[in-house]
């Protein structure tokens, strides 16, 4: 839920997920809420000596086939759009990174019901 490059929580969440997946645990879904939606911004261009967090999330979750969902209500107001939403709101551009998907809070509730543990990395 924290903002990348502003709070450490995104990095901590990433390291935790990496450790969980590489030691054989399953992650049902990662849900990006509140400022966490900025993690899916494909336009992020950090300096070369810093982690590219959207890219790292993309690689990790693709490798382990983890579902990554961005809260659509949080994302729209914060300016994170996929192509479909951009068209709907008549914007010339969009910036959602693949394989992130925009969806509703129902995906968070569904994940909570289908997981043994739910862990929040907050700002």
């Amino acid at each position, binding site marked *: 839920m924290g903002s990348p490059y502003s709070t*450490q*929580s995104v990095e*901590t969440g990433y*390291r*935790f997920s*990496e*450790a*969980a997946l590489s*030691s054989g*645990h399953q992650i049902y879904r990662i849900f990006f809420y509140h400022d966490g939606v900025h993690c899916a911004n494909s336009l992020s261009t950090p300096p070369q000596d810093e982690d590219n967090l959207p890219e790292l999330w993309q690689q990790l979750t693709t490798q382990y086939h983890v579902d990554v969902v961005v809260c659509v209500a949080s994302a729209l107001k914060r300016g994170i759009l996929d192509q479909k939403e951009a068209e709907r709101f008549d914007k010339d551009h969009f910036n959602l990174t693949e394989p992130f998907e925009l969806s509703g809070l129902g995906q968070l509730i569904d994940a909570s019901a289908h997981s*043994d*543990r*739910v*862990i*929040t*990395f*907050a*700002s």
Partner: protein
Amino acid sequence: MVLNIINKSPFSHSAFSECLAVLGDNDRVLLIEDGVYAAQADTEYAKTITALAGNNQFYILQADAQARGIADRINHDVQAVDYTQFVELTTVCNVVHSWY
């Protein structure tokens, strides 16, 4: 058994004190990010932790303590863990509660 995770400095935010006020018997507390400053030896927070350490177990994320230059002055009642042990802690406890 609840795993409480705290990521804020106890000197600046009330999260640490509030969490400790509602700990259950045998609950665990993991200090991460700026939360690790609560684990420094000899501060007022060290005393609070030591008083509770009979019933509760306290942990600190080692990477965060090292980053902040305090890994060598951690309260003896607090145990250092890496990310893999962090994952294990979340499986050992029944539920995880993040304070921020």
